[in-house]
C-alpha cells in the first residue's frame, strides 16, 4: 500500500493548497477527467493506457493521511506561502472520518487498452460531499500518467514499424518482441522514471537493459520476469585493452561468452576496419564457429545510423556471404547479427529499415537499441495529456462545466459526466453530459475510498495492447477505401460526442 515516508499532502502543486477557498460556496461534488486531447495534424492517433495501477498502489491506496503528515504539511505551507492557508481541518476530517483513506472514486479504462485520442481515459470524483476539494488536489499526481501512457504508446509505434518491415522482408513476426531493446536507463531523469518507463516499454517488448523496469513489473503488475537481455560490451571493456589490442578485447568477449548471443560494441576507433579486418578477418573463424543460438551481434555506435549500418552490413556480406530467405531478402549467416543502438527514434528506425529493404536486406538482420527517444525525449505535450473538471454539484444540483478559450479551441474540455463506449460501428467514443448508458461504459471503477478494486497483470495488459492486423500489413488494405482508422477519425472530427 502507500509509501510510509511519502507525504501525500506535499505531493501537489502549491497553488492547489489554496483551492478549497476558491470553489463556489456549497459545492459538494467536483468531477474531473483525464484525456490525451486530439490535435489536428498530430502524429499519434491512439494511445496505450498504462501506469495507473502503479500510482494507486504506491501513493494513493490505503492510509495516506496521518497526524504527523498533517503537522509537517501545516508547518511547511506556512513558511512556503508566508501565511496560513493550508486546510488543516479538511485533512484532519479525512483522517478522522476515513482513517486517512481518500474518499475518492476513480473509474478507468482497463490497462493496456488502445484508445483513440480525444477520449476519456479515467474520471475522478469525491465520494463524500465534504471533500469536494480532493478531486483536483490529486490532479498533479494523476496527470503524471502522461508518462507511462506516452512511453507505452511510442514503444508500440516502434513495434508497428518493426512489425511491418519484419513481415514484409521475412514473411513472419518471429522475434518481434526482441527487436527494440531498452537502452534508456542512464538517460532518464531518475530511478523512478527508469522503472516506470522501463515497465511501459515491456508492455510491447521483452528486451531491456533497464533493470528497474523489471522490478516495477514484478512488484506492481505481477510479472516475475518481464524482460531479457544478453551479455554485451561497453566501450570501457574494449578500450581498457589499449588501442593496439582491440582484437584481444573482442576475442575475450567470444571466450567469456561461448554460448548464448553476445553483443560487442565495435566503433571505439574504426567500426569499418573492425568489421572487415577483425571480425571478418583475424577472428573470422571464431565467429563462424558460433551457433545460431550464440550469435555475435555487432554494435556500431556513432556516425549516421542508416549509412553506418548499411556500410557495416555490406562489409559483413563481403566477408561472410549471406543467403536468401523465403521471401527473397538477404540474411546474414545465423551466427551473425547487428544491433544499432545509437541515434534511434521512430524516424531513424523507419529510415534504416526502408533503406535495408531497398538494398534487399531482411529486417531479421538487425536489432535496435533505444535510449532517450524511448524513455526521456517525451513530454506531456507529445499526446496533449490533460486533466479537467467537467461537472460539479452545488447544493445537490449538477452542472456541466468546461473551459473553451477563444485563444485556442483545441484546449476546450469535455462537459458533464462522461462514459466511454464502443458504438454500433465498432468505434470507441466518449459520451458527455451524463447521457451514457452504464451498461455500455468501458470505464471500470478501479479505486474507491482507499481501496484498489481492480488489478491487471502485465500478461493481461500485453494482450490488450497487442498489434492489430492493419498495423502489421497496411498494404493489404485497398488504398482507395479508407482504413477503419481513417473512418474512425472522421467520425470523431464530425463531433460524435
Amino acid at each position, binding site marked *: 500500500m502507500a509509501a510510509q515516508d511519502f507525504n501525500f499532502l*506535499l505531493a501537489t*502543486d502549491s497553488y492547489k493548497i489554496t*483551492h478549497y*477557498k476558491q*470553489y*463556489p460556496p456549497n459545492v459538494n461534488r467536483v468531477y474531473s477527467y483525464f484525456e490525451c486531447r486530439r490535435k489536428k495534424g498530430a502524429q499519434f492517433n491512439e494511445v496505450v493506457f498504462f501506469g495507473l495501477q502503479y500510482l494507486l498502489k504506491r501513493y494513493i491506496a490505503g492510509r495516506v493521511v496521518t497526524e504527523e503528515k498533517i503537522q509537517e504539511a501545516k508547518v*511547511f505551507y506556512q*513558511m512556503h*506561502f508566508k501565511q496560513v*492557508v493550508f486546510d488543516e481541518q479538511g485533512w484532519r476530517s479525512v483522517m478522522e472520518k476515513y482513517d486517512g483513506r481518500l474518499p475518492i472514486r476513480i473509474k478507468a479504462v482497463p490497462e493496456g487498452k488502445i484508445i483513440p485520442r480525444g477520449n476519456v481515459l479515467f474520471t475522478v470524483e469525491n465520494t463524500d460531499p465534504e471533500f469536494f476539494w480532493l478531486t483536483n488536489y490529486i490532479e*498533479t*499526481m494523476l496527470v*503524471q500518467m502522461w*508518462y507511462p501512457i506516452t512511453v507505452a504508446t511510442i514503444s508500440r509505434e516502434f513495434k508497428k514499424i518493426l512489425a511491418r518491415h519484419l513481415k514484409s522482408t521475412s514473411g513472419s513476426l518471429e522475434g*518481434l518482441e*526482441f527487436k527494440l531493446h531498452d537502452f534508456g*536507463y*542512464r538517460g*532518464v*531523469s*531518475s*530511478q*523512478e*522514471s527508469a522503472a516506470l*518507463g522501463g515497465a511501459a516499454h515491456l508492455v510491447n517488448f*521483452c528486451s531491456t537493459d*533497464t533493470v528497474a523496469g523489471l*522490478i516495477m513489473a514484478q512488484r506492481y503488475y505481477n510479472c*516475475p*520476469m518481464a524482460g*531479457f*537481455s*544478453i551479455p*554485451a560490451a561497453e566501450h*570501457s571493456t574494449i*578500450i*581498457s585493452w*589499449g588501442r593496439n589490442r582491440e582484437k584481444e*578485447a573482442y576475442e575475450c568477449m567470444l571466450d567469456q*561468452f561461448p554460448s*548464448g548471443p553476445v553483443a560487442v560494441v565495435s*566503433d*571505439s*576507433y574504426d567500426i*569499418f576496419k573492425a568489421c572487415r579486418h577483425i571480425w571478418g578477418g583475424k577472428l573470422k573463424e571464431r565467429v563462424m564457429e558460433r551457433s545460431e*543460438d550464440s*550469435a555475435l*551481434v555487432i554494435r556500431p555506435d556513432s*556516425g549516421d545510423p542508416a549509412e553506418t549500418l548499411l556500410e557495416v552490413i555490406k562489409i559483413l556480406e563481403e566477408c561472410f556471404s549471406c543467403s536468401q530467405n523465403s521471401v527473397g531478402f538477404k540474411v546474414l549467416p*545465423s551466427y551473425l547479427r547487428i544491433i544499432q543502438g545509437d541515434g534511434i527514434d521512430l524516424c531513424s528506425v523507419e529510415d534504416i529499415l526502408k533503406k535495408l529493404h531497398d538494398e534487399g536486406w531482411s529486417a531479421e538482420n538487425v536489432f535496435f537499441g533505444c535510449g*532517450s527517444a524511448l524513455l*526521456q525525449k517525451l*513530454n*506531456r505535450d507529445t499526446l496533449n495529456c490533460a486533466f479537467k*473538471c467537467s461537472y460539479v454539484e452545488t447544493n445537490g444540483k449538477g*452542472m456541466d*462545466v468546461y*473551459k473553451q478559450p*477563444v*485563444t485556442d479551441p483545441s484546449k476546450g474540455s469535455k462537459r458533464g459526466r462522461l462514459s466511454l463506449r464502443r458504438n454500433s460501428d465498432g468505434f470507441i467514443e466518449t459520451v458527455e453530459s451524463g447521457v451514457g448508458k452504464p451498461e455500455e461504459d468501458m470505464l471500470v471503477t478501479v479505486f474507491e475510498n482507499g481501496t484498489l478494486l481492480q488489478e491487471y497483470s502485465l500478461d493481461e495488459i500485453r494482450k490488450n495492447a497487442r498489434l492489430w492486423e492493419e498495423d502489421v500489413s497496411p498494404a493489404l488494405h485497398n488504398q482507395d477505401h479508407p482504413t477503419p482508422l481513417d473512418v474512425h477519425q472522421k467520425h470523431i472530427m464530425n463531433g460524435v460526442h
Partner: protein
Amino acid sequence: MGRRMGMLVGSETCFSWCVRQSANTVRLHSTVCESELSVSVLQVTHYKQYPPNTSKVYSYFECREKKTDPSKTRKVKYQQTVFYGLQYILHKYLKGKVVTSEKIQEAKDVYQEHFQDDVFNEKGWKYILEKYDGHLPIEVKAVPEGSVIPRGNVLFTVESTDPECYWLTNWVETILVQIWYPITVATNSREQKKILAKYLMETSGTLEGLEYKLHDFGYRGVSSQETAGIGASAHLVNFKGTDTVAGIGVIKKYYGTKDPVPGFSVPAAEHSTITAWGKDHEKDAFEHIIKQFPSVPVSIVSDSYDIYNACEKIWGEDLRTLVEKRSADAPLVVRPDSGNPLDTVLKVLEILGKKFPPFENCRGYKLLPPYIRVIQGDGVDINTLQEIVEGMKKHRWSIENISFGSGGALLQKLTRDLLNCSFKCSYVVTNGLGVNVFKDPVADPNKRSKKGRLSLHRKQNGDYVTLEEGKGDLEEYGADLLHTVFHNGKIVKTYTFDEVRDNARLKESEMEELIH
C-alpha cells in the same frame, strides 16, 4: 538468433513463455537492494570483459563540447554547465552498506532469469560484503556543487580503490550518469535567468525580483515523483519561486539551507476553480477569489472563455475598484494560458494598459500600476522567453510587469544530449602498469574521450583547463579543483544548498557581458 533471443515462435509466445516461467522464479522481496539492481544490465557482465590482471578502472564524467555543424545553428549555446545533483545520488544510492547477503542472493536469482544464464558476479559482491561490510570501495572526486564550468571539462572522476573491485567503477556508471538531469535543469534554468536579468536591467535599471521571475509549474509534467524532486531542486539553485513542492523536500534532506524553506509560492486559481462557477459567473468567480486573498499576491487564470474580454470587461470594468484597492505587496496577477505566448502577452498588456494606465519608469519603459501584474505560464521555454521579453521591450513595456511560469520545458523537455553528458573510462591499471585509454570513433570526432588521469585547474586569467594523462601532478596550474567527496562508502565532503546557490550565482562579469 536462437532460443535465447526469442526464436521461440511468433509474437504471442514470448509473453506466454514469460508466464510459464513465473512458476519457477523466486519472488522478489521488497528488500531488493535498489543500487545493486539499479544498474543497467549491460554492466552485469562486464567484470568478465576487462583485460586479465586489471586492478583499477578509472572513469570520468563531462558535458562534452560539441563542435556543431554550422548548418545546424542552435539558438542557445549552453557553453557552461552548472554542476549539481551528485550529493543526492551519493546519499540516496551509494553511501553506507549497500550490499547484504540476502540482496546478493536475490540479484543472483533475478539475473539468472533475466539472462537465462549464470553471469552475475556473485563472488565479486560477496568480497565487498565481507571485506568492506557492504560499503563500495570506490573514490569519487568532484568539482564543488553549484560550480559553473565550461563544456568539455572533467566534472567528476570515479575509480576503484581495491584491485579486486576494478569492475565496480563502471558498475556505478548508470546511476551516476543520471546526474545529467539535475545538471541540465540547473543549467537551462540559469541560462533563462541570464535572459531575464538582461532585459530586466535594460528596461528597469534594477534586478529586483529577478529570483521570482521564473516560477516552476512542472510538477505534473515530469515523468515521476522522484524526477519532480530532483528537477525542482535544480531550478531552485537559481530561483526562489516554485509550485513543485517535492523539490523543497530534496533540498532539505540532501543539502540543507539556513532559511526554513528555499522556495515560495502565492495563492493562485486554476481553471476548475473558475469554471465550477459556470460560464455566466466568471465575474463572480474572480470576485470571490480576489477577496479570499486580500493581503498577498493572487494569480488568477483568466482565459477559461475569453482572456481579452476578461481583461477588458471583468478586470478592467466590473471589478476595477477591487483591483485598484490592492497594495503593491498584494497585486492581482492576471494569468493568460492559451494562444501564441508573445501575441497574447502583448495584447493583454495593451488592454490592461488602457484600463489601468501605466506610468513611465526611470528607464522610460511603461509600468502598470503596482496593484496589477501579469504572469505568462503557458508555452514558456528558453526560446519563447527570449521572444517575449524582446517583444515587450520593443513595445516599451518594462519586464517588471511580468513574471513567467514554466513546466514541461523547465523540468521535462530535456535530454542527456542537450549538454552531451557522458561517462567514459580514461585510465586502467593492468599487470601493475597504468594505461591511458580512450575511444575515438572515426565517424564522430565529437565522441572522442579524454585520456588518463584527469584534473581540473583554473589558469591565472580565470580560464578553466582539464589536464589529461596525469599532467595535473606537475602543478603547473595550481591545485586540482576536484575534491574527494566519496571514499569507500563514506561521504567525505558535502555542500549546503546555500553554498550551491552562491557558486551558481550570476557573476559581475557575466552581467556586464549581457548588458553590453
